[in-house]
């Protein structure tokens, strides 16, 4: 019966509007940015805008972005697993609660939330006030890479937690029971059962965290005090301040190439349909 339905296949045409949309608003815009990237500011063909990523200033921003993105991804992973295990421990495996806790913050405007972090972390901010009151001295994280790191981890943590949580929630309880009956302790159960089965979720999480944390420019703008630049800041300024659209496009394209390569690398293990739902 499935075969019949598959072979009749007038259903394919339902995706017609979407195919048109993808062509008009995904494929063509990408061609436009590539064209702009390959055009010199004065007109004429050039690859200079794309190679410009290797200029020391741009390269520095790119490396700093990579550092932030890698750090953010690792921290998000390290924070997510204990949470998922804790939820299991307390039998709070219900998806509803988790969605609720993780999605709700998105309803407070994201820029305002980052500004709130600025108030918390600034030198005479809330965190230092609490630390001083407790007699623990002071921290000076304001306008440092650490502040940016806290900001990106804060902003992208839900995108790591949700898919890992969903993947773990789908694990059949019998598998874990069986492992325990066969003498596995908690640690072994995690390493041999829970972790391997959570990998599809982990991959979704990495995809959802790595790229955005690398290219965000608002977080670094607010928490980095304008001195620390991610590649996103450089691109944004080419468009809004330096007004060099071609250079901005060129840097975007090289960023895109880098993203594609790293994603192809991540997705290699990710077979058809294996990646668990993000939401």
């Amino acid at each position: 019966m499935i075969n019949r339905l598959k072979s009749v296949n007038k259903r394919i045409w339902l995706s017609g509007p979407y195919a048109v949309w993808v062509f008009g608003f995904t494929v063509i815009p990408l061609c436009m940015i590539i064209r702009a990237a390959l055009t010199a500011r004065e007109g004429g063909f050039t690859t200079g805008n794309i190679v410009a990523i290797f200029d020391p200033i741009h390269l520095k921003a790119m490396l700093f972005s990579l550092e932030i993105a890698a750090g953010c991804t690792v921290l998000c992973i390290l924070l997510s697993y204990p949470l998922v295990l804790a939820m299991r421990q307390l039998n709070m495996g219900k998806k509803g609660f988790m969605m609720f806790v993780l999605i709700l913050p998105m309803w407070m405007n994201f820029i305002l939330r980052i500004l709130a972090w600025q108030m918390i972390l600034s030198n005479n901010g809330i965190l230092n006030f609490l630390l001083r009151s407790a007699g623990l001295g002071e921290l000076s994280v304001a306008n440092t890479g650490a502040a940016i790191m806290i900001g990106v981890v804060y902003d992208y943590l839900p995108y790591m937690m949700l898919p890992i949580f969903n993947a773990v929630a789908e694990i059949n309880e019998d598998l874990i029971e069986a492992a325990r009956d066969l003498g596995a302790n908690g640690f072994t159960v995690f390493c041999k059962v829970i972790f391997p089965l959570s990998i599809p979720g982990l991959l979704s999480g990495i995809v959802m965290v790595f790229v955005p944390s690398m290219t965000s420019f608002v977080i670094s703008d607010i928490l980095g005090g304008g001195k620390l630049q991610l590649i996103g800041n450089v691109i944004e300024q080419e468009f809004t301040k330096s007004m060099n659209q071609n250079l901005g496009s060129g840097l975007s394209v090289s960023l895109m190439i880098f993203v594609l390569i790293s994603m192809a690398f991540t997705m290699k293990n990710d077979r058809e349909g294996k990646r668990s739902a993000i939401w």
Partner: protein
Amino acid sequence: MVRKVKSGNLFHGISGLKNLLSRCYIGLIVLFLYAPILVLIVLSFNRSRSRVTWGGFTLEWYGQLFSNRQIMDALVTTLVLAFLSALIATVIGVLAALGIHAMRQRNYQIMMIFTNIPILNADIVTGISLMLWFVHFMPLGFGSVLIAHITFNIPYVILSVMPKIRQMNVSLYEAARDLGANAVYGFFRVILPQLLSGIVSGFFMAFTMSMDDFVITYFTKGAGVSTLSTMIYGEIRKGIKPEMYALSTIIFVTMFLILLAVNYWPEKKPAVREEQRF
């Protein structure tokens, strides 16, 4: 027997400790996620216009909020934009998911790659590339922002509906057709109800993403339009108007109550969901 009881007790002690640790950890994560929100809510009641000093409790900003034209305009733009883009994205996305699901392996994969592009691509690249394209045929304004939002919303709809389509019981639709239902009737009475939870969560995700977006709006909006996000961004240097904290608090609390109601409403789901899977 004795051993079993002992190990049972031991297990109980350890699991008690584990429960405590688990609670503490969840508490810490929730604190981390909600600390800035708490700060913003407190600020909305702060009489002082400065962000760093507490000038006493006031409801003044809540009162002034509704007479602030700029903020109200931005709010309306944001809500209309989120609703329209989520609605259109849901219609296109659900149809697309049904169509893509019927495709052969290779085409299926090609379509899924295109679906993943806006998700994988950096927001800034998506925003810039759309902007570079829009300037060729339309003025930047509400229309261009709407198209941009639909573009990044469709993938979320497809990705949340697709798993439901995979689980869908095809025989039910076949049976309806055999019993004389036409394709449209069968679609609305049999297919749609099975996909409903995926469609609702797709719509909700799209709405949320649209409300929370800044980067793509920033690059595609042109001069005339402003959403709450772009308005706030413009005020960073000058200082955020306190009314904005009040508005954000209202939106947040409203959503909190809505989500609370939705999540803890008595559930009527059948217990044996698994068996329905095909």
